[in-house]
């Protein structure tokens, strides 16, 4: 079959779709990866075939202006706590309005959507696999009659909150219903002669890469898939020092790629943090970006600073990892059974970090306010290293993940679902 895979141009969101794209390719299917031109290089360096569509999005600029307000709204009525009753109409309307304006409609800019639809109308994919915020893929599928699947990189908070919003909206008089996301998708689909349907938000089904104990229960069709790490276009090279026994536990300290490029971070400054952690009896491996390295104070001998490193290369040798809570870092550590200290700041990061702690596989240290001083990070890390229960907890999550079918093993399921959901030839709006 022909599979169009899409993720908006942001590496962390693209990385999560790569292993399935490889699996589809290796199973003999035709795969194209569509995104804004800025992602073309990342796509081709992942060994995939790129389809640049539209012009680059400007989400960095819009979120730069809007982020403080977005975070101010979302920190308090915290839907991550599994208490949907906190999500009232006012909050959900505000959340959906600002995220649609500042994020969804920005990362899916009109020219990107339009060219993706044009490409799909020409190439005729059987299946569109889209990153869960890349609604352009949903529009292209809806217009051309392709089957469509969302490919999650984290727990499905988005759809959970969306479902809650629909439930709350249902209780409101029709004139008062205000759903910015549906409204935006409606006029966007109408531009291409198609009508809004719930599948442009939920897909025909969802592919979920989270371990079962970190997944939300849902009645929707879901295909569980094992997370396979892909770290992005950094050279995945095994450095010689990795094989040398450090003689003490190795600890990885890392910021995610998104945090590194956007500056949204909950981590204390690298120099202070490294000096503090280095007081522990451990070998500290830290990824620090080049410009921050220049400002570092002289570091003790047990600290090894590297510019970048493939997580799946180094993590199997680590006794613990300290990170910002991002999806890729979290899942790579989980897959390798490494206990985690997560300084998670926002969104799904917070939920995953909380689950980690609940499952006994690590500690969630909220970095807000004074929460994550260098000293507290060091003390929590010492705890993670000292108590064997964390490694046991991490091993349980690893076992769960290994029991889940790997990408190659879910391909036949995707073939069946595609056959069921694809519109018969010639029945899309554009054919």
């Amino acid at each position: 079959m022909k599979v169009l895979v899409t993720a908006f141009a942001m590496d962390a969101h693209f990385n999560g779709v790569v292993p399935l794209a490889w699996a589809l390719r290796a199973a003999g299917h035709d795969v194209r990866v569509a995104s804004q031109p800025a992602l073309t290089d990342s796509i081709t360096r992942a060994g995939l075939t790129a389809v640049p569509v539209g012009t680059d999005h400007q989400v960095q600029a819009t979120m730069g202006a809007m982020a403080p307000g977005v975070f101010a709204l979302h920190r308090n009525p915290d839907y991550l706590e599994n208490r949907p009753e906190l999500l009232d109409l006012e909050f959900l309307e505000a959340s959906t309005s600002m995220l649609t304006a500042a994020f969804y409609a920005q990362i899916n800019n009109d020219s990107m959507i339009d060219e993706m639809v044009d490409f799909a109308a020409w190439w005729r994919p059987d299946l569109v696999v889209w990153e869960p915020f890349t609604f352009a893929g949903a529009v292209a599928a809806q217009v051309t009659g392709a089957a469509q699947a969302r490919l999650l990189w984290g727990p499905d908070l988005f759809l959970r909150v969306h479902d809650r919003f629909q439930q709350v909206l249902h209780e409101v008089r029709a004139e008062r219903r205000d759903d910015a996301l549906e409204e935006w998708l409606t006029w966007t689909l109408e531009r291409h002669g198609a009508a809004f349907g719930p599948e442009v938000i939920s897909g025909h089904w969802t592919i979920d890469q989270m371990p079962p104990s970190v997944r939300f229960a849902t009645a929707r069709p879901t295909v569980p898939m094992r997370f396979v790490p892909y770290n992005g276009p950094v050279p995945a090279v095994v450095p010689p020092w990795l094989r040398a026994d450090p003689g003490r536990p190795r600890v990885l300290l890392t910021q995610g790629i998104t945090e590194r490029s956007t500056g949204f971070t909950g981590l204390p400054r690298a120099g202070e943090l490294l000096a503090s952690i280095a007081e522990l009896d451990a070998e500290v491996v830290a990824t620090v970006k080049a410009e921050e390295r220049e400002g570092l104070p002289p570091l003790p001998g047990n600290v090894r600073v590297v510019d970048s490193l493939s997580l799946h290369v180094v993590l199997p040798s680590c006794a613990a990892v300290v990170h910002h809570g991002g999806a890729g870092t979290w899942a790579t550590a989980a897959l390798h059974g490494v206990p985690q200290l997560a300084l998670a700041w926002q969104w799904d990061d917070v939920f995953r970090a909380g689950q980690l702690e609940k499952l006994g596989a690590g500690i969630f240290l909220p970095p807000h306010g004074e929460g994550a001083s260098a000293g507290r990070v060091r003390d929590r890390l010492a705890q993670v290293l000292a108590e064997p229960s964390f490694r046991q907890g991490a091993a349980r999550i690893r076992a769960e993940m290994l029991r889940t079918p790997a990408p190659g093993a879910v391909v036949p399921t995707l073939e069946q679902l595609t056959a069921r959901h694809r519109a018969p030839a010639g029945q899309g709006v554009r054919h």
Partner: protein
Amino acid sequence: MPTPTSAPPAAPTDSELGRHLLTVRGFHFVFGALGDPYARRLRGEADHLSLGELVRDRGPLHRSALGTWVTADGGISARLLDDPLLGPRHPASEGPQEHVLENVWETWRTCHVTPLGEDLLTPAAADSDRLAALLGPVLGPRTCTAWQVDAERAVHRVLDGLPPHFDVVSDLARPAIAGSLAAVLGLPDEARAELPDLLAACGPVLDSALCPPRLPVARAMTRALRRVRELMAAAVANHLTAPADGAVSALLAVDPDGGRDPGDTVTAAVLSTVVGAETAITTVANAVMALLEHDEQWSLLRADPGRAADAVEETLRWAPPVTLRSLITQGEVQIGGETLEADQHVVVLVDAAQRDPALYEDPDRFRLDRPRSPGFTHMALAGRDPLGLVAPLVRVQCTAVLRAVAERLPGLRAEGEPLRRGRSPVVRAPLSLRLAQK
């Protein structure tokens, strides 16, 4: 080489308009979440009066996070609305005031949010003056009461058909205002029949200047506006060939040899229908709600329905039908200790300003006998812009309804809680309230 003529701006596509409305709405929520009181006001939080207090606490005039200058100070608000250095348009600009095709992420312009395709709400000063001169002898502050009897007769016809349980907006205020409007203007039957639905669709016009409606609502609004203009143009054409009763013929008869454009009469009728009716419907509903909440004032009115005009005036102050007035500086303005450059957006929080304790004694009390100096007009309907132009007719229509209600529905009571329209921070338009006659 021929000089290119400047084409009117192309009508935006659904995607262009939708994205613009979505973005501005996003701004309201983002800055509302950061606590900016004006942004919170625009996002439509229910407790509008507390937000007005927050604005007043920030000083006589302050710059909101959205870039708009905001005041809730009674004295400053009155001066701003009266100052010719503030108007509805950007200085030295031509044509309809629209920012749809600009990048709001760069301009941060949150005025003139929704294009109407015409200059209805943003006439140039000369056009306003010409309309005021036209309206003066017919529907002006000193002449409009002549239509009181026509308005009352139409209102009574609506009350004749009122069921025992009814909705304050859809069964009382809207039909009564539509009926009295048709009677006063002298509209043909076709227009009368269409008016209630058209008024509902045009309802968001005043709100839409500051608060983006949902795209389908914006489209329905501009369609309804076009239809109103067609109907009014047809009515004016009829009156031109066969003068009849009603204000339309009277307007056409003003200074017939002065070369007046009948188009001005059409515009006057459209304004009365679109801006006037929304204002009047809201005032009637707000007045009924206020009276039912203040039994002693309701008793006063029932005992003397002739005080209906007092009830209207106090409603215009206590629960104004326009709670935010949007202005643009036409030149440098020094006020409230600030120097505003030309082309700055200024918003007056009318609801808060009209409860400024410095201006009103016991401002939170709703009382029919509140003293007023002659010629005084509340800020909600002050000024030379379209609201000021339709104010006399609005007062006549509302007085007619309240008088009739006081006479004929003495046992009126509420059966539930009032609901307000979404995305209505300017008008805070009532959507519904169930009432019972007894």
